[in-house]
């Protein structure tokens, strides 16, 4: 075993649950995960070799095919396509003399596409060996090609290539907060008896499970505030945060986990990237507050540990976030006896994802944290009682933890007074597509789509995709609808399409996305998303029929009835939404037949016609049957 491999394994304490983290490090160090490396890792970790191989095979950013110096993956969200990424891919391939999707013969470069990288407001984007580069142009690709051909290590590439904008266009209570690191935490902890005597007596008091000691009121009070705030999860499902925390607190176990879901994979969403860049302290305050609540204030509830699951596409945020964590540890905001509260121990570590959208599903995320293939679990039991390593686990979105910190600082009533009756607080939207000012917009819940469109400078708007492919696509007559759980629930994506766009192509891009990201566990999603992709391609190629449209509706029924998780349930949504609202863009591609073979028989005769030099009517199949 090489020294590098040994170092990586030691960094992760030879811990099999850290397999994915080990593999990410190996990929970064060696540019691939060689078969002999898999064998070595398996024996060092005491795992069956095939299990390691199976994990490597699951994640898009882990490669076991061959070493390659530069892997250049173009983000392939519809917004990247609208900004011309296809031509840029071809351009770079020509520059580098490589074939798309194949490692060059000398092992130097590989150019392919990947799912949305969360840079839709500054696309087209790509990842080079996992590092994001936004705002691609031919000039920037010229520079990239030169660096690749000169074999300059990525860490020596000019920093301006990787420079990213936050593009905050509208800030409200969250993005505009003036809290200092730890403020929210202090507000909650010292709403309880202040430090000094009370804290000491509290430390000696019995745990809340046996009877409430003085300081225990702090965590109970905070839970009450969170419940009073009516805060609901910002990841899309909208589960009440207070109820989730309470269920986790009440589950009996010695060990509990707080997990922040920063696996922001929904195409068109990038608000977590900006929150992680600008609000990291607020987020970590929120996670620490969650630990405070579910761990019962640190005493008696056993120990609590935190994870931030950061999507692989946000690799560039890893070091900055780790610096924030280190600073918080030295400031007493993490670690043992947080803010001097005896027994309140909590720390956070960051785990990287490796290119798997499905890991945004909370139970798949937990499987991935455990170093496994990111396959959603059967539920019940739910993570709040049986999560990471079967211990009670609270999984919340980045924005949810930030909002929880605001609640702790300003109170539940204050928070609930913002937004609508059923949707408290604000929502951070990631706006991209056809508008003058793409970026981050924070609004109180209840804002109308038309208002948002006016603010971001969208004109001639044909449609808006709310909450990404798994959300809903709306057309102009619906622009009076509001962003709120009771109307348009959203995880934050807001993709604008103007009248120059073809909504069929939008839906086709999303169908490809779902097929690529299906974990493959259940039959309907594994096969159904592949059938949907093939059907959309068939229609695009001019071979579609009315029968195909009916088949898509049948697929949707099957996926909704039987898919294992939300990915499958929503996979047909973009197609059905656009079919309902923009049917002509499908119909003009259909041949007016009930049946149209996918195979073009006359086209297949073209080679024979060329060889015989014939092109007369007799050399063609009769087209008379088509009416």
């Amino acid at each position: 075993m090489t020294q590098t491999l040994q170092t990586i394994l030691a960094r992760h304490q030879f811990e099999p649950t850290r397999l994915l983290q080990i593999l990410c490090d190996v990929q970064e160090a060696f540019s691939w995960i060689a078969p002999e490396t898999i064998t070595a890792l398996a024996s060092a970790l005491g795992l069956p070799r095939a299990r390691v191989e199976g994990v490597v095979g699951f994640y898009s950013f882990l490669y076991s095919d061959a070493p390659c110096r530069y892997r250049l993956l173009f983000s392939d969200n519809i917004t990247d396509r609208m900004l011309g990424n296809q031509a840029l891919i071809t351009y770079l391939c020509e520059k580098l003399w490589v074939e798309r999707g194949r490692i060059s013969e000398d092992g130097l470069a590989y150019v392919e596409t990947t799912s949305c990288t969360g840079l839709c407001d500054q696309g087209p984007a790509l990842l080079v060996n996992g590092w994001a580069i936004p705002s691609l142009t031919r000039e920037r690709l010229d520079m990239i090609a030169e660096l690749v051909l000169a074999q300059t290590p990525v860490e020596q590439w000019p920093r301006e290539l990787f420079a990213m904008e936050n593009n905050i266009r509208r800030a409200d209570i969250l993005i505009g907060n003036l809290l200092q690191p730890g403020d929210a935490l202090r507000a909650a902890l010292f709403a309880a008896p202040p430090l000094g005597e009370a804290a000491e007596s509290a430390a000696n008091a019995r745990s809340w499970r046996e009877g409430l000691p003085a300081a225990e009121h702090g965590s109970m009070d905070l839970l009450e505030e969170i419940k009073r705030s009516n805060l609901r999860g910002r990841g899309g499902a909208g589960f009440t945060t207070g109820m989730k925390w309470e269920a986790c607190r009440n589950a009996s176990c010695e060990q509990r986990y707080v997990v922040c879901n920063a696996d922001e994979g929904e195409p068109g969403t990038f608000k977590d990237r900006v929150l992680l860049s600008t609000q990291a302290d607020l987020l970590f305050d929120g996670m620490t507050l969650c630990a405070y609540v579910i761990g019962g204030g640190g005493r008696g509830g056993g120990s609590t540990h935190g994870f931030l699951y950061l999507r692989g596409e946000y690799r560039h945020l890893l070091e900055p976030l780790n610096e924030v964590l280190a600073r918080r540890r030295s400031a007493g905001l993490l670690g043992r006896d947080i803010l001097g509260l005896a027994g309140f121990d909590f720390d956070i570590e960051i785990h990287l994802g490796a290119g798997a959208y499905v890991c945004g599903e909370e139970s798949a995320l937990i499987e991935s944290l455990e170093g496994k293939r990111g396959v959603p679990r059967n539920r019940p039991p739910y993570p709040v009682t049986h999560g990471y390593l079967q211990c009670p686990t609270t999984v919340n979105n980045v924005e949810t933890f930030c909002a929880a910190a605001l609640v702790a600082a300003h109170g539940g009533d204050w928070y609930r007074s913002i937004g609508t009756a059923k949707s408290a607080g604000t929502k951070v939207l990631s706006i991209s597509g056809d508008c003058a000012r793409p970026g981050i917009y924070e609004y109180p819940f209840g804002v109308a789509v038309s208002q948002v469109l006016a603010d971001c400078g969208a004109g001639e708007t044909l449609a808006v995709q709310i909450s990404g492919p798994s959300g809903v696509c709306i057309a102009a007559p619906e622009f009076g609808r509001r962003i709120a759980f009771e109307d348009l629930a959203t995880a934050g994506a807001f993709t604008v399409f103007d009248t120059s766009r073809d909504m069929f192509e939008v839906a086709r891009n999303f169908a490809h996305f779902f097929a690529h990201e299906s974990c493959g566990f259940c039959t309907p999603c594994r096969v159904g998303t592949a059938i949907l992709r093939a059907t959309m391609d068939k229609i695009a190629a001019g071979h579609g029929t009315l029968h195909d449209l009916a088949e898509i509706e049948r697929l949707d029924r099957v996926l909704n009835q039987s898919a294992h998780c939300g990915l499958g349930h929503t996979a047909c949504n973009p197609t059905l939404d656009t079919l309902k609202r923009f049917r002509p863009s499908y119909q003009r591609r259909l041949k007016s037949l009930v049946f149209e073979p996918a195979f073009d028989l006359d086209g297949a005769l073209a080679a024979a016609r060329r060889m015989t030099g014939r092109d007369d009517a007799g050399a063609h199949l009769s087209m008379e049957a088509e009416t």
Partner: protein
Amino acid sequence: MSDTFVLDGEDVPFVPGQSVLQAALSAGRYIPHLCYHPEFKPHGSCKVCTVKANSGLGSRYASSCTLPAQAGLEVESATEEMNELRRTLVQMLFAEGNHFCPSCEKSGSCALQALGADLGVMTAGFRHFYPDRPLDASHPDFLLDSNRCILCQLCMRASSEVDHKHVFVLSGRGITKHLIVNSASGRLADTDFALTDKAAEVCPVGVILKKRVGFAVPIGQRRFDQRPISAQALDDAPRPSDTSRGTA
């Protein structure tokens, strides 16, 4: 004493911890299924056993093999809606792999084929994928033909839970998900797979085939040639001791 839930209008007793499918089978009631096997922990991947479950909280669709039986649950299984879904799922499995029944050694003993016949599946319904899947004849005692694999994970579960060998594992994702074996060469011959393994017995289709015993039983006299899978599944189900085996 046990509680009951309702399956297609009739009471079915269950003991706590049983899933709807397990309770139904032990009570002599059939719910079509494929990746479920009474000897292994159910995981609900094939979705053929999907039922509509109505409770106080509303109705939802769920895999009956993993759905915990609960008093008061009203389960719809033998409905046209559910059987139409099952036919589509079976069609998807046929379209996904390369299944050429007439030349397959498992024809007549194949659960996928038998299920299709029982449910009235006449064609694959979808355009075939014709995937390029390898054949591994390296092992002296076995032929591994992944063309027919339906990814039910039974061999995987048997090999890890019973044989403690992990010979079979899944790799890939989505439609490219596939079975791999536990060897650096990727060949079955280089694993410790053996004739005595439980995993050698459980493949419901024709992936793991023993060599030198092909066509030992003539077509027409094979397992599902004799009685449909719906009857045989009940024979295989663990039953309370006071109930005689078989209901046909």
